[in-house]
């Protein structure tokens, strides 16, 4: 009885709304259970599992070469970096010496992947905020990178270009030319992105001060990648534990201390410039040599535990392999960045509006298959 009376007495009542699993801005099958008071969010409960494919379990029956191609299907926007993570772990276990050429090529393609991922993210971010035109511009430029990938790796999205020990095949003769053309092109187009969204007053209003999360919270939730660096958490694995060729290139780790949506946006915008800077340094200096170290046809990791982390476009991806000296791993665990980043959503979204939630999710750059695996 009492609740009814409060309703009558102009009190508001909280209600639930299911955002997803089919919703335009969850970008996949993520279900968010929102507790709302009018338009104001009181609580966000992510419900996952709609796209769970038990990749970790599948890995337990696959050979090490086959595991690599499964990771394409986790965070499909940084598939090359996922592949690289598995390969690095296996190579670490085998104590393989990797040719320099492979390291440099891997780094270049990783950075291209990061660029492509951020371009797509930028477009989608615009679309989530209602500027659909940006989406098309983002895709227009990403298309050129996928062309580079298609020519060298043979696929546009699920590339599977890495194999334990090196690369599947050597780079295409056109690779360097195309990449340089792309860089020249994109250096002209990036300012366009900034003019269209970054400086726009509506965009600033929609992102500045919205979705704040402190550095402490970021660390305790394990938010990594650009989302973590937007709160001043220096977590770039490329700097902390350089792998491949990151130890020989010069680049800045982008840090913003504001911790709001705008800061996370700016981190990615600046990271695009840094990625281009990294590629600039390497593209003309690809050492000659083999594109693959010699490996046995059947790889058996010595019994033990191996962990390797890399920096994907979304944050820290950890690959943990327990081997019992068979041709398949005993157990594989992926520490995916999306999962941890999503966990911070509730803290960020409390007290914001539905529209802010959409902007926040965009700046977290969630890829749902990465969360569910």
């Amino acid at each position, binding site marked *: 009885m009492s609740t009814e009376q409060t309703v009558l007495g102009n009190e508001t009542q909280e209600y639930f709304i299911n955002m997803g699993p089919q919703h335009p801005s969850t970008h996949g099958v993520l279900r968010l259970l929102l507790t709302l008071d009018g338009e104001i969010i009181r609580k966000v409960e992510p419900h996952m599992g709609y796209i769970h494919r038990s990749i970790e379990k599948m890995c337990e029956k*696959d050979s090490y*070469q*086959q595991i690599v*191609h*499964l990771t*394409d299907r986790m965070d499909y926007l940084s598939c090359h970096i996922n592949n690289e993570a598995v390969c690095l772990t296996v190579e670490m276990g085998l104590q393989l010496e990797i040719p320099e050429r492979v390291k440099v090529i891997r780094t270049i393609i990783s950075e291209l992947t990061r660029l492509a991922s951020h371009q797509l993210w930028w477009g989608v971010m615009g679309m989530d905020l209602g500027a659909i*035109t940006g989406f098309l511009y983002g895709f*227009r430029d990403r*298309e050129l990178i996928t*062309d580079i990938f*298609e*020519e*060298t*790796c*043979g*696929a546009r999205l*699920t590339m*599977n270009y890495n*194999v334990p020990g090196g690369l*599947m*095949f050597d780079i*295409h003769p056109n690779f360097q030319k195309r990449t340089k053309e792309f860089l020249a092109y994109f250096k002209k187009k990036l300012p*366009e992105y900034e*003019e*269209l*969204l970054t*400086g*726009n*007053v*509506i965009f*600033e209003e929609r992102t500045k001060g919205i979705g704040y999360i402190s550095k402490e919270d970021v660390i305790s939730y394990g938010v990594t990648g650009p989302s973590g660096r937007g709160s001043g958490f220096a977590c770039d694995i490329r700097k902390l534990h350089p792998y491949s060729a990151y130890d020989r290139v010069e680049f800045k780790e982008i840090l913003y201390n504001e911790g709001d949506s705008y800061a996370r946006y700016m981190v990615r915008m600046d990271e695009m410039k840094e990625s281009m800077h990294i590629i600039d340094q390497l593209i003309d200096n690809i050492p000659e040599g083999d594109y693959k170290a010699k490996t046995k*046809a059947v790889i058996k990791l010595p019994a033990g535990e191996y962990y390797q982390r890399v920096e994907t476009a979304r944050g820290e991806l950890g690959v943990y392999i327990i081997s019992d000296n068979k041709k398949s791993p005993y157990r594989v665990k992926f520490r995916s960045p999306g999962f941890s980043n999503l966990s911070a959503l509730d803290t960020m979204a409390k007290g914001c509006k539905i529209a802010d939630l959409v902007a926040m999710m965009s700046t977290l750059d969630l890829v749902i298959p990465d969360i569910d695996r």
Partner: protein
Amino acid sequence: MRIIKNIGQYFGEIFHAIKSLLTGMKITGYYFFHPKEIVTQQYPENRDTLKMFDRFRGEVVLIHDSNNEHRCTGCSACELACPNGTIEIINKKEIDPETGKSTKAIDQFVYHLSMCTFCNLCIIACPTDAIKMAQTFEHSVFDRSKLTKVLNNPGSKLMPGIRE
């Protein structure tokens, strides 16, 4: 004084806002008046000029030469390399007409296109380079069973000299 400053700020904000909006409009306006920059293509119409990159992975094919001979020995390396059971090698016993010994030869190279993830592992696993990736990509059919293909041509034989 403060009021004047506040009013100045108020209008300053408005002008800044309008300026930022106009910069955005400049970009979209530029593209509107430059239809040459349109990037989309009209797909089925440009089929003839559309050329895929030579490494593009469209589907697995077994290479046959003009004598209807292929290089697949039926060793099943590709079947083992495939992560998802896309390839099934069905072998048969064959009596070699010259030596009279019975050898293994492929009867059917079954390829389930619907299960293939185009990972290229089978291609690099093949010791005799018998298979390759074709650049076709128009795979849609009305009946799923059409996606299960037998890759070796009827009556095709192993190229001589491969087994050694």
